[in-house]
């Protein structure tokens, strides 16, 4: 009950956020944070909770974006169909790719997921008839639901917020359900998990497919809010960024990915002014964060809180 009140309060605050001096640009940035938070939440399910690395999540982000854009443009379907198509396609793709890949562990799993990510990127570049090749797809229609056009930056922000809140509730319910505990069980002790009747392979694959579906949702939003997509944006660098968001916020913590998404998007945007040096500074800042906050922002905060709390209790 308390947590529901917190959720309502936070969502309320996010609703008034645009009126605290937001312009079209800041609204766009807030929207990006929401989009990346959705993807990072999904990645946290498979990487943070289940302990399986994916270095190819940008591929599912891309598939979601392309499927959604092409469904609305080439097939002339309403936006909601594009979004649903993106979810279904990325879930199925995640299941198909996850089934063989998740037999691997650690670095091998990392490499397999990089491999698939590159395959997707190559396909986007080379299958020009369908994907329009390296130039990408532009003039993607803005989101529209049942006749309501989200045609201003403010409306698009609310749209992203709405989807992000739904995604968060789904993610939160999963984490606190048997799925959440089962995912952590697989991460903590695969042996004990299988002795408790858990099919390791199925559980990992399910976590992976759910997480790729989250990436698909993010991709669809990205395509229709940004209104332009191209293969360049979906490479290994982007996959690493997604992973960084999950780690910086605090792997396996509920709100870690949201904090991580905000930090990464903010850093990336504010470093743009440094032009050539931005990647250098960005990398350096990430390294410093990893060194000084190894458990992630939320993870470290929780630890700090527990320590203080424990201390207060013993007094």
């Amino acid at each position, binding site marked *: 009950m308390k947590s529901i009140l917190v959720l309502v309060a936070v969502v309320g605050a996010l609703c008034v956020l645009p009126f605290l001096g937001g312009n079209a640009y800041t609204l766009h940035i807030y929207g990006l944070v929401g989009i990346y938070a959705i993807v990072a939440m999904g990645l946290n399910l498979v990487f943070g909770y289940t302990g399986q690395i994916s270095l190819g999540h940008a591929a599912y982000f891309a598939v979601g974006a392309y499927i959604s854009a092409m469904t609305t443009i080439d097939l002339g379907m309403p936006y909601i169909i594009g979004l649903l198509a993106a979810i279904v396609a990325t879930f199925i793709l995640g299941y198909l790719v996850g089934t063989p890949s998740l037999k691997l562990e650690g670095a091998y799993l990392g490499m397999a997921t990089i491999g698939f990510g590159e395959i997707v990127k190559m396909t986007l570049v080379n299958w020009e008839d369908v994907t329009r090749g390296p130039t990408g797809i532009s003039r993607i229609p803005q989101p529209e639901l049942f006749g309501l056009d989200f045609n201003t930056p403010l409306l698009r922000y609310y749209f992203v917020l709405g989807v992000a809140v739904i995604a968060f509730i*789904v993610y939160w*319910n*999963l984490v606190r*359900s*048997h*799925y959440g*505990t*089962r995912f*952590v*069980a697989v*991460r*903590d*002790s695969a*042996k*004990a*998990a*299988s*002795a*408790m*009747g*858990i*099919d*390791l392979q199925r559980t990992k694959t*399910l976590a992976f497919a759910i997480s790729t579906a989250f990436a698909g949702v993010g991709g669809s939003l990205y395509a229709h809010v940004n209104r332009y997509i191209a293969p360049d944006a979906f490479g290994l660098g982007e996959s690493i960024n997604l992973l960084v968001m999950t780690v910086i916020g605090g792997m*396996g913590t509920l709100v870690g990915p949201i904090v991580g998404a905000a930090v990464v998007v903010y850093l990336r945007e504010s470093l743009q002014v440094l032009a050539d040096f931005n990647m250098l500074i960005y990398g350096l800042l990430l390294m410093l964060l990893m060194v000084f906050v190894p458990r992630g922002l939320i993870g470290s905060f929780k630890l700090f809180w527990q320590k203080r709390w424990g201390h207060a209790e013993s007094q």
Partner: protein
Amino acid sequence: MLKVSDLAKSFAGVKAVAGVSFEIAKGEILSMIGPNGAGKTSAFNMITGFYAPDAGSIVFEGRELNGLPPHAIAKAGIGRTFQNIELFHDLTVRENMRVALQCNSPVTTIGAILRMPSTVRREIEENRRTDELLKMMGLADKADYQSSALSYGEQRRLEMARALATDATLLLLDEPTAGMTPAEVGIMMDTIRKVRDTGITVFLIEHNMKLVMSISDRIVVMDHGVKIAEDVPSEIRKHPAVLRAYLGEEEVA
């Protein structure tokens, strides 16, 4: 209840288990003893699907288990603990139990995502069952502890509670008193008896002779991968082959 025949397993030429047969009857406590490296844990691992046997068969309540993965064997009703404790250390005691309680009735994805009333009701029922099992294991007040914060003896008992939560009818315990203080051993002995009295069959690997001799209905003795004796405790005590195998080891009490 369980019938193991001609079970064999080698590792890089080392015959860990070399053709072992025995049976477990419903409701009994069967112990397996033997010196270090005798092949006891390997036998457990084959019964529970963690090792694929090179040869032999394992029939549990009329069903061949050889070839099934561990999770299927757990669902069939065989619960186990591990020689080196394997808890989900990032989860609380209650959450550890929760993982086990879904063994035979996993919730649906949709039920979880929408957090349907049936999911919530089920959690309440699980909490009740958890409290019941924890009480039996003497962990009633530890439900909300992080499992890694428990004492060694408590961790072992949690592992047992968790194995029982899978609705196992046969419980395999791999050295449940290893590293315990005498007081903790006493508690464990009572606990194992309590478990048996609820109708659960117990198959125990143990080095503590006093416990084995007083608790077991029958004992299987292993040495170098083969069964060298099988009998009631009073006979095992004076069995020549057993005395030989244990010479220079622990004294047979």
